[in-house]
């Protein structure tokens, strides 16, 4: 049921996906290999530079790593910064790895 806008001046409300599903922006997506991932190997909180450096905040610092592919823009910073080379950027349309 669509109601009308009662605001007399423009005030926006927070919500996910303001720019839509920004995962659609990607031409390459990050693929994670737990075998090379330091926290996954150590089975404890460690490294997580991918989480630190993600400009979108769509990486969860969990074991195994979780990347929200609905919103990941595919910038590739996580892959670039991972000291274990556990993340590879793969072309969209190709299979993982």
């Amino acid at each position: 049921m669509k109601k009308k806008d009662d605001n007399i001046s423009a005030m926006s409300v927070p919500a996910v996906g303001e720019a839509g599903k920004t995962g659609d922006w990607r031409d390459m997506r990050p693929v994670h290999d737990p075998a090379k991932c330091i926290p996954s190997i150590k089975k404890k909180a460690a490294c997580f530079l991918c989480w630190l450096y993600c400009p979108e905040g769509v990486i969860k610092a969990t074991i195994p790593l979780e990347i929200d592919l609905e919103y990941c823009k595919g910038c590739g910073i996580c892959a670039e910064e991972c000291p274990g080379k556990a993340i590879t950027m793969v072309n969209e349309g190709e299979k993982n790895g």
Partner: protein
Amino acid sequence: MPENLFKVNIEEYMLPGQRACQGCGLSLAYRYVLKALRENTILTFPACCLTVLHGLYPTTSVTIPALNNTFASTAASASGIVAGLNALNRTDITVVAIAGDGGTFDMGIQALSGAAERGTDFIYVCYDNEGYMNTGTQRSSATPMGALTTTTPVLTKQQPKKDMLRIMEAHDLPYLTTTSPAYPIDLYDKFVKAKRIKGSRYMQIAVPCPPGWGYAPKDTVRIGRLAVETGVVVLFEIEDGKFRFTGRSKTLAEKGNKLPVINYVERQGRFRKMSIEQLRQLQRWVDTRWNEYLKRAEG
């Protein structure tokens, strides 16, 4: 290393699906700015990349209250929020003005100088991506010499970067600091510290911009790091007049192994027309300033 990471506030105030570019340096920095500032904050910012990041009506990507203002008026807008909150006896909220280099070094300088001179109790953040990026990379006074922009498309920018840090230092602020998204923990710690200080606090963030600077989005952190490694960006803070290096710059100052600026410049498309003389001038400027800072850190 993870110890530091997990001291950081884990709450995310920037929701996924926001409108910033792929690999945006501002986006990365902003995550940590907001984590440090937390909920009891009111933001105000002009028309700039941040406006777009915050999103278009009726949805916003940021869960902190924010007021948009006109391009020249950011620090005045913050002054008004502070005044209004004081009048209403709401003293528990941090007021933060945040603008790009255009809205700070250029059009916003009058309002900023005025607010700082009045000792307004607010934090002013300048995210410096060295150009008017939201309108497509036109030159600002923050653009370094030798850079190509759409308004310096053939000859490159002829003037050196305006030294906004010295201008703000002349306002006798209780806290002035430089930060970088390539060093998020240093940035986070400084914002946490700033939140507790009274008076006009000036925070500059050296923000790499993939489309504006001409490098691949995956290299934002690398470029940000190289800026610091070469001394083009120096991480420091001045608290009550006392200068100190922080983070990676502190290590570089102690070890004396900063890299030549060519390492930074050669990776960016915007510098492809930089002349040898301009490069030399940049190196000279970096070295002079670095030595000045070394002296200040000792004394």
